[in-house]
């Protein structure tokens, strides 16, 4: 082969570096000045009441179309998680009241999330906010958007029974409260488990038929990147749905895919 000059005399490989535009410094500047996102503050705010037992806010008045992709439906009512609540409150789209009809200040909401009682702490909220601001649809993993009209693979008589059971469960509100609290609480903040189901921005999203998430999300809170063993354990919880890991540091949310590679045997 002619011209096999792949190393010059000093032994340096000539693989060029691609200098990508360094917009990270600009981003930092924007973060400092608080103009990094174009938030649209709404004029008509929805209204919700915080339910301490459930760890969720019950929506009393809905304004705007965001409710198509926010909040879970139980017994005809909509409830939002703490991350959904704070997200909407931050942009002025939701007024949160307590049981004495006193409005929650943002401060009080931030205090609530720092308690980390309802399966979501500050970092996970930052992840939620990051994705929601970009238009993704984000739900808690393992918490169905709605119980009504769940499409199953049962035959008609069995599904009718299921619907009846759901109906009863839904009407018996306290049963549902318990199950939700269980679900929310079981999302331990530590340990590598999928915490969010994430869907790409989609105007056709419907809670009664959300379809399979585009990916599941796991927040890593360890001080070090996950070992192979931990990643495999996480994947086994995901039923074949792609999973991404994310890490939050100083307000920066970073996502990683850590998939098995299996390089081909070359000819």
């Amino acid at each position, binding site marked *: 082969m002619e011209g*096999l000059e792949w*190393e010059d005399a000093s032994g340096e*490989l000539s693989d060029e570096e691609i200098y990508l535009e360094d917009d990270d410094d600009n981003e930092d500047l924007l973060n400092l000045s608080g103009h990094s996102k174009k938030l649209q503050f709404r004029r008509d705010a929805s209204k919700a009441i915080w339910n301490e037992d459930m760890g969720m806010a019950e929506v009393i008045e809905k304004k705007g179309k965001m409710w198509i992709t926010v909040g879970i439906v139980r017994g005809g009512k909509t409830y939002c998680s703490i991350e959904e609540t704070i997200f909407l409150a931050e942009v002025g789209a939701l007024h949160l009241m307590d049981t004495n009809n006193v409005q929650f200040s943002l401060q009080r909401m931030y205090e609530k999330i720092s308690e980390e009682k309802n399966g979501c702490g500050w970092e996970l909220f930052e992840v939620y906010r990051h994705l929601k601001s970009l238009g993704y649809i984000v739900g808690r993993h393992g918490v169905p958007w709605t119980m009504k009209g769940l499409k199953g693979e049962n035959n008609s008589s069995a599904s009718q029974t299921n619907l009846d059971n759901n109906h009863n469960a839904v009407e018996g509100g306290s049963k549902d409260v318990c199950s939700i609290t269980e679900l929310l609480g079981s999302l331990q903040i530590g340990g590598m488990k999928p915490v969010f189901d994430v869907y790409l921005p989609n105007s056709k999203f419907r809670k009664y038929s959300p379809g399979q998430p*585009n990916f599941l999300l796991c927040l890593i809170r360890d*001080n070090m990147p996950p070992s192979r063993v931990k990643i495999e354990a996480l994947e086994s919880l995901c039923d074949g749905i792609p999973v991404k890991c994310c890490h939050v540091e100083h307000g920066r949310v970073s996502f*990683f895919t850590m998939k098995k590679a299996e390089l081909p045997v*070359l000819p």
Partner: protein
Amino acid sequence: MAPRWKGRTAEAKALADPISKIVSDLQSSLLQSEAHASLSGSSALLPVEPQHAEILTRACFGRPIITADKVNQWFQLSLEEAFYLSHHLGCLKITHHQGTTCSIAELWQYMKSKIANFPHYYKAYSHLRTKNWVVRPGSQYGVDFVAYRHHPSLVHSEYAVIVLSEGGSSSDDGVDGRLMVWSDLYCTIRLCGSVAKTLLVLTVNKNGHGTVSPTTLDGYSVEERSIRRWSAEQNREDQVAAANGTK
């Protein structure tokens, strides 16, 4: 990431000239010329007659040492390369500086004395080489190896490789020290991205073996994982790729 071939004809040239054949030709060539390399520090110095030099370069083993020697062309092999040629391909004899040929066991001990965790690096190196990937040192990029689909003159390297270990009977898991903190992962991925390579983590599992010898190296296993950054901003539209989990 698709392979970045250098020029329009590169891919065809690579297909016409498979690495497996080149390496097998190298094996014959070195055997025929009774090649000997001598250990020197963490390298093995190999003189070859000019007619055999080309195949060594085509197979991407070693680095040429430019000398005025008219009889031989000199190459400098890394310890992994030397051991691979000597033990795996069986086509190279390796000698001490005094000139006596080393046994495989002696060679193994020597290399372990020069490179801590040599068995892991060698296992990772041979894992990729036996799949016919071209494996070169990665220190320029702050990683252990870089892996090319074919000769570097034809293609850019796709993978920047870091070797990690686990599953040892002693307490030296992860003692290699890489990717033990987040800042290292961020740094390594950023560097890989700036040179258009994907970070490939090869985890060498000792499977309970303690001290291992070249013959029991088969007891180690290698798991490959690629780690990539994913940008939420850039991937909103890309429904198909996201659904396939390819991004």
